[in-house]
């Protein structure tokens, strides 16, 4: 239809697959090569993404606090994050003497690997996914719940009371907020009838769920945003690394690249959470359509799906970044009260309402 659709990402992936299948006869080798290519391209995508998110975080913070933010290194301060990375690379990676050295060095790797694994079922564009698994949504929630193991390992192996306290807080927080995240995901799964990411996106061809699903879906969208902000330990739920109370929480003892790994994982998690929200509630790579306005709809179709996806994802990232400078940090008891006394009951009732909507077909 248009030039953009001709050279889409899925066409590139298909071309690569055909070329590999043609040049390598062994089917096993083909799939192994494809996995390697997918992994490398994921890394090549994630590193600039994290650079950009780091820059964006600083600029958004500056915007919220009416100051300029980084503006010295590079044009408009864009290279500031490169300078930071170089600084971290040259720093000494200390390992405390009393620590459990193996676990101490393993923990940042586990945290990064679990967050990278969760990228697998995310649909970046039409037919452009690493792994279109039939339980994509569950997969993401399972993998993202594993990050807490790495955090607990980091906190425990550091042999530092602040680290341990931070890890324990983070554990309690992630285990409790997982429930609300799961329930708000389930409400969309009920409406779609499938856990597969591509099916969920396809079900929004005639309208995004946040529009089609009326108020209950908006409620679950808001709950998802709150609970997933808590699950990725971002402010105002950053009790695990509350610097005024715990120095730096579970990564107090980490320095250099090992610390950078935690930072990397935080930004990847932020991206994943926003991508999931964009996929489930805002239609993923589906363009925005308005009823019968065929001219408007055609114009929207000309914008490639990957741009739609990235635009929605970064909108949600922008919102989550603004949370950080809008709300004060919660106390531990307030945190648990919010989840167990407010969010969980609301989302349980909400799931029942959404189920009724799906059964009686009340949604658009």
């Amino acid at each position, binding site marked *: 239809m248009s030039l953009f659709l001709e050279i889409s990402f899925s066409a590139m992936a298909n071309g690569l697959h055909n070329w590999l299948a043609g040049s390598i006869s062994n089917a*096993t080798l083909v*799939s*192994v090569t494809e996995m390697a290519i997918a992994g490398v391209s994921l890394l090549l995508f994630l590193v600039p993404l994290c650079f950009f998110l780091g820059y964006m975080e600083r600029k958004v913070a500056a915007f919220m606090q009416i100051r300029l933010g980084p503006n010295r290194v590079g044009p408009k301060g864009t290279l500031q994050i490169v300078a930071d990375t170089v600084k971290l690379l040259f720093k000494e990676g200390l390992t405390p003497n009393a620590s*459990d050295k193996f*676990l101490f060095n393993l923990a940042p790797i586990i945290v990064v690997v679990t967050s990278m694994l969760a990228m697998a079922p995310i649909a970046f564009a039409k037919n452009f996914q690493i792994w279109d*698994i*039939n*339980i994509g949504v*569950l*997969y993401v*929630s*399972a*993998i993202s*719940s*594993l990050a*807490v*193991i790495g955090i*607990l*390992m980091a*906190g*425990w192996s550091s042999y530092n009371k602040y680290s*341990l306290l931070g*890890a*324990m807080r983070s*554990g*309690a927080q*992630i*285990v409790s907020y*997982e429930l609300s995240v799961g329930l708000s995901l389930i409400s969309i799964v009920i409406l779609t009838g499938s*856990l597969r990411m591509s099916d969920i996106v396809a079900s929004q061809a005639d309208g995004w769920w946040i529009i089609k699903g009326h108020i209950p879906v908006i409620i679950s969208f808001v709950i998802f945003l709150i609970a997933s902000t808590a699950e990725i330990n971002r402010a105002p739920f950053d009790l695990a690394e509350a610097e005024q109370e715990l120095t730096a929480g579970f990564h107090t003892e980490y320095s250099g690249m090992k610390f950078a790994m935690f930072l990397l994982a935080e930004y990847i998690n932020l991206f994943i959470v926003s991508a999931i929200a964009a996929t489930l509630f805002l239609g993923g790579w589906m363009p925005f359509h308005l009823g019968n306005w065929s001219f408007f709809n055609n114009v929207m179709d000309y914008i490639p799906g990957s741009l739609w996806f990235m635009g929605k994802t970064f909108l949600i990232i922008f919102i989550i970044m603004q949370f950080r400078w809008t709300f004060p940090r919660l106390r531990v008891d307030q945190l648990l009260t919010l989840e167990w006394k407010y969010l969980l009951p609301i989302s349980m009732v909400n799931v029942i309402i959404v189920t009724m909507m799906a059964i009686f077909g009340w949604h658009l």
Partner: protein
Amino acid sequence: MELYDILFWVLSAIAVSCALGVILSRNPVNSVLFLILTFFAISGHYVLMNAQFLAIVNIIVYAGAIMVLFLFVIMLMNLNADVEPQKGQLVQLAGVISGGILFLVVLASIKTAKAEIMDKTSTDIGLISNLGKVLFKEYVLPFEISSVLFLSAMIGAIVIGKKEEVKTSATAKMEHVSE
């Protein structure tokens, strides 16, 4: 050897060696971490059998929730040989006997069980829709009863937690008075 066989053997080796690590490692935290790895290997087996749903539920429930709570408790208590009270000989003997009996039962059931070789390509019993149909059609009564069991366990935990709280506040009051 196909990719399938290679993966099967690698996962089996990981599962068995990590299971050994659970019982052989001195540090309880390492034991729990080994157990998590074992669950991962078993989840890998589920994926090989085209049962992705079971694999993911295994990870969510065991590796993600139960093991995290285990880790939580063990790390907080910081168990080690100095703090841990040594068990008496009688208790150790009882443990060996009950463990041995369990081993016998498992061995007997494995011996009598018919070994069914799964057709690894065509099976789709682990897919979520098929699993749901089986659970809610053939096994609906056991399924519901076990959910009631879980509910009662949850309520029991809350009751015990509440009682503890009342007691501590009462003792705190008493301490306050005695001061």
